[in-house]
């Protein structure tokens, strides 16, 4: 599991690749910390290369939404695959994030 954060204009893009499961979540939570401190940015959680997400991964996405949202950021989830789409739907997270 790899997380790369890039800044592009007013956007902070977190590119996830691999499987965001429980063992990977500890490192990923550490990797996304810069997003939690962002102010007035558009944060894109780019899932183009994310294969799988577990509950621990959902919690990380949720913490980004809560913390960064509190600092005036807009959080988007980008390009999820069919499996992750299903997870978002089943858990009601589909109502929680802007997904494109």
């Amino acid at each position, binding site marked *: 599991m790899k997380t790369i954060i890039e800044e592009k204009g007013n956007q902070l893009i977190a590119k996830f690749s691999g499987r965001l499961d429980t063992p990977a979540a500890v490192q990923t939570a550490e990797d996304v910390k810069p997003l939690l401190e962002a102010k007035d940015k558009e944060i894109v959680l780019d899932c183009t290369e994310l294969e799988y997400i*577990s*509950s621990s991964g*959902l*919690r990380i996405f*949720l913490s980004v939404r809560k913390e960064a949202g509190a600092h005036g950021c807009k959080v988007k989830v980008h390009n*999820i695959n*069919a499996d992750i*789409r*299903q*997870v*978002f*739907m*089943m*858990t*009601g*997270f*589909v*109502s*929680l994030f*802007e*997904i*494109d």
Partner: protein
Amino acid sequence: MDLHSELILEEYRAQLPVFEQMQTEVMRTLREALDRIGLRVTALESRIKTEQSLSGKLALKGSKYQSLRDITDILGARIVTFYTDDVDHIAAMAEQLFEIDWNNSVDKRMLHQLDSFGYNSLHYICRVPGYDYPFELQLRTTLQHAWASINHDIGYKSGVEIPREYMRRINRMAGILEMADDEFSRIRTEITDYRRRVQQLVQSGKLDDVQLDGDTFGSYLEVRPFDSLNRRIAAINQAEIQEVPLNRYLRVFKAMGCKTLGDVERVVRQYENDAYRLARHQLGNTDLDIISSAVGVQNICIVWILSTGGGKLGLKHFFDAINGHNTQNDAIAKMTYEQAKKVMGYGL
């Protein structure tokens, strides 16, 4: 300027740090008290009179003052409220916070004759414990503030005495704004009463008497109508429930033809078991132990759409309504349709 006024100015210069300290204390006290009573205001501001302004005042009526302590507005604070009722509310709050000098305080709202209009504000001369100097607290509504500011601007610019006709027109505006202030207060009171009545109806279950709109749906959500379904769904995987706002479902229920909260309640009760079955089918084979509080109402809407023949397109419109239009909604709708078909049948 005479010697007496010079002495007052000298005292002013020496005491400036004290006024600055008092200003910080007053602003902190007022801000904390407003937060405590949960009252929103349009402005909370203060200023210390400049030396130039004080000199002007002393030049005009310096002999009136024995010492700097007699000039009550060296420090001035002002709270501008949304509503007239709030002026009295904050006045009562100020009476608890500061010692009020009633001899020098004045309610300008009460000074007008029955047939006259003009400057309206409540001026309290206050003392902060531990300080020898008083300060002035002005309380007024946003509209009173607008009138006072414009009136000041006109008077300041003209440099000549304003003819009676113009003064009359300016004061007439104060009358109009007073009427508007009263009307805004009345509207607020009526809306508060309406919300209270709706909440009572919601709590007493007389939902057919309540029209469905943003306010009433908010009251309905306060009685947490989806909690029992969400708890049942959470129990499938012993999941935690993350609270999310559900207001966006108002437009979905409206699109479903619900006119009253009673209509919403009937949909909820009729479809909650199917909504649970859908969730059990989806989550039962996973170890997902986190759900959002939207999952119950989301599944109710899905099974309603499918049971009333809405099909994939109906689901797409639903996801468009709650997520905004985007390319993923089509795929989410297709996937949901396939899953629901397995559980519900619905002759799909």
